[in-house]
């Protein structure tokens, strides 16, 4: 056994999208040594993407094989098993709405949940910065619904033929909708191609038009601005003697499991997502921090947050061509900004083209088996009209015991206890849930009727999407694990960035907000 030590200025734990944002920003100041530590493997490079996509389309094979570790698994509703260079954002859909100003002050405006210690206005420049770094293509929505300090860096993704028809339908229902902002190049950008509608943004863009963190890593590594250690699991953070400063990270490299690695740094940045960030703090308990690091107030792992959705399909008497650009959508913040209901309910609204109900089928309505020309004739008849997919995310106010805890009965390969996830609504959200979902269903019925259509089906998803929390920010050490910059109240040289720091999950995809928060955190990493 050979003990080894690496000295660096900044140690970033995790290599997903928030780590990439922080590393890019810090690397712009020369002279700072940045080490990125990733437990998972390197992922295939761009020259393999097209073949990987082909096998995904043909056989459902993962385009990112071995993007997880078999023994790093949480009990409970994990967003994803991804643990690899680039993280979950290797197969995200690239959808990048901002939260709305109300998300940051639900308590003072609506009397529910908690206000964040920062406002939308505080975050606006960092939203802009994240949009520039990733290359977000977007369209300015109505100013009262879609406030922003500067224009999008890239022109919007054009509305397809289908989306133009659907936009007109929704306008007729009194709901303004516009092109969903997306981290997909509408024009070539930063050496990456423009989108060419391959329509597999999730899980893989074969041409690199969608931003994914590996683009940043390739750029930073080739310029020797960062060192990235893959296949290296940080098992513990350790304190300096007689101090609350983090002195080192204790790691194990999977290729050298018998040679423990110590990483010493001036600043530690925990960028390991909502599960593994809180997990590392909890497993790093010491005699002075018996409940885990950064956890004097007992809030590490608490207030896990996210949003649920109600989704449906609406048959419309409109000729649509399924397949023009299925992953791009319309979006509206009509129900996120101005109160539209007599009780607390805020939700986004998105509309896509869809082939649901318009796909070829094997049997007709009478149950007769169809073959060849019969299938085609049946299919043609049913595609004279179109289908819209519609979905509303509504926000869920988390309970304190919406939490990540350690499960001592389940351990990883190194004997460390694994996490257990339990998402729980606050009393307010629990009381509102059925009512909220019913209002959204009524909305779907209303817009269907406005277009002389009908709802084919509608369903609510119990899973909380775009999860965050577990190391939430607060104004004081009594209310948060970290301050508004992600700095731990208990350890001055420890930052937690991105999703774990969120106070609440809003009702829109969270990744852009995770990135904006991370970039704001980076300004405090001296």
């Amino acid at each position, binding site marked *: 056994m050979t003990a080894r030590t690496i000295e660096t200025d900044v140690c970033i734990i995790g290599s997903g999208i928030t780590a990439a944002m922080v590393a890019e920003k810090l690397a712009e100041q020369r002279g700072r040594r940045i080490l990125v530590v990733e437990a998972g493997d390197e992922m295939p490079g761009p020259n393999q993407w097209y073949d990987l996509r082909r096998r995904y389309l043909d056989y459902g094979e993962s385009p990112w094989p*071995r993007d997880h570790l*078999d023994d790093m698994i949480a009990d409970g509703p*994990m967003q994803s098993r991804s643990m690899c260079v680039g993280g979950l954002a290797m197969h995200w859909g690239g959808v990048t709405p901002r939260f709305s100003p109300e998300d940051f002050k639900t308590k003072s405006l609506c009397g529910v949940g908690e206000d964040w210690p920062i406002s939308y206005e505080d975050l606006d420049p960092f939203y802009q910065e994240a949009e520039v770094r990733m290359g977000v293509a977007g369209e300015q929505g109505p100013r009262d619904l879609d406030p922003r300090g500067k224009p999008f860096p890239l022109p919007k993704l054009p509305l397809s033929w289908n989306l133009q028809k659907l936009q007109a339908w929704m306008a007729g229902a009194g709901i303004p909708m516009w092109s969903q902002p997306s981290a997909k190049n509408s024009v070539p950008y930063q050496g990456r191609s423009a989108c060419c509608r391959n329509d597999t943004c999730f899980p893989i863009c074969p041409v690199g038009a969608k931003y994914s963190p590996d683009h940043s890593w390739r750029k930073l590594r080739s310029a020797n601005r960062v060192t990235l250690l893959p296949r290296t699991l940080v098992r513990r953070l350790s304190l300096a003697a007689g101090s609350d400063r983090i002195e080192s990270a204790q790691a194990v490299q999977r290729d050298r499991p018998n040679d423990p690695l110590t990483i010493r740094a001036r600043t530690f940045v925990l960028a390991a997502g909502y599960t593994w960030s809180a997990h590392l703090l909890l497993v790093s308990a010491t005699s002075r921090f018996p409940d885990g690091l950064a956890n004097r107030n007992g809030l590490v792992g608490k207030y896990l947050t996210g949003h649920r959705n109600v989704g449906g399909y609406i048959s419309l008497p409109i000729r649509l*061509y399924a397949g023009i650009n299925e992953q791009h959508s319309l979006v509206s913040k009509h129900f996120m900004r101005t109160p539209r209901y007599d009780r607390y309910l805020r939700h986004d609204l998105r509309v896509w083209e869809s082939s649901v109900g318009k796909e070829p089928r094997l049997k007709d309505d009478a149950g007769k088996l169809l073959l060849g020309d019969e*299938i085609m004739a049946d299919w043609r008849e049913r595609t004279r009209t179109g289908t819209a997919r519609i979905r509303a995310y509504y926000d869920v106010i988390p309970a304190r015991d919406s939490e990540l805890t350690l499960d001592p009965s389940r351990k990883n390969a190194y004997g460390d206890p694994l996490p257990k996830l339990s998402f729980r609504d606050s009393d307010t959200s629990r009381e509102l849930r059925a009512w909220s979902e019913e209002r959204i269903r009524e909305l779907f019925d209303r817009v269907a009727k406005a277009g002389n259509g009908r709802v084919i089906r509608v369903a609510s998803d119990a899973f909380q999407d775009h999860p965050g929390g577990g190391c939430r920010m607060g104004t004081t050490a009594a209310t948060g694990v970290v301050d508004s910059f992600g700095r731990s109240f208990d350890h001055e040289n420890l930052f937690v960035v991105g999703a774990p720091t969120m106070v609440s999950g809003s009702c829109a995809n969270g990744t852009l907000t995770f990135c904006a928060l991370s970039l704001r955190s980076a300004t405090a990493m001296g």
Partner: protein
Amino acid sequence: MPLPVRIPRRSFVGWLGAIAASIGLGARVRAHAAPAEVAGADPTAGTAQGASLDAAMLARLAESVLPGELGADGAAKAARDFARFATSYRSNAEQLHPYGSARIGFTGESPVPRWRGQLDALQREARAKHARGFAAITAAQRRDLVRAALATERTDRMPDPMAASHVALALVAWYFGTPDATDLCYGARIQKNQCRPLVNSPKEPEPLARRRARSSGADEGEPPATDAGGGDAAARRAAGGAA
């Protein structure tokens, strides 16, 4: 009868393992992996089966169960492409893992050996009923044999081709899932899942008839429209500049 409804992405991937198990595909699912990595195991390292399917039988089958407007040449091409698709399948390849679940799934055994047996059975049935081989009987007679073979098929939805219970069903499901089939249905050049210029997205897809009437194969700036490989080639070129 319920409409064929596509399962939303997040639900789909979450249920993938359960569905695969229920339809007997043989896809394996590990709900909770052993608490240690399997040294050296690479689930994607499975090799393509390589087992061939009788090309002549497949061509006759394609003529029987695919749209007549493809013509004999189109059906023969579809049969060849399907055979290549089927024999390129790999067992034990890691499947896309789900959101909201810890399951990791792997592709199951190849159905090709079973399908080969089913082609043999169709041949035997043809001889038994018509005293001639499958290739020598009429298309209507072939379709009757296929209908008899699929008489117990319960679903009204197109199956995942590699999970199809019968080779005829697999061929049908595979073909009707292709971009070409969609274009034929709509009579328009949509070319779903192909690399297509973003600038054309707002336009109504061009009618197929006009497309075919042109001597040139492609609009300016568009990938070649000869077959699915045209879009693939364009995507490969674009990917070359992605790094």
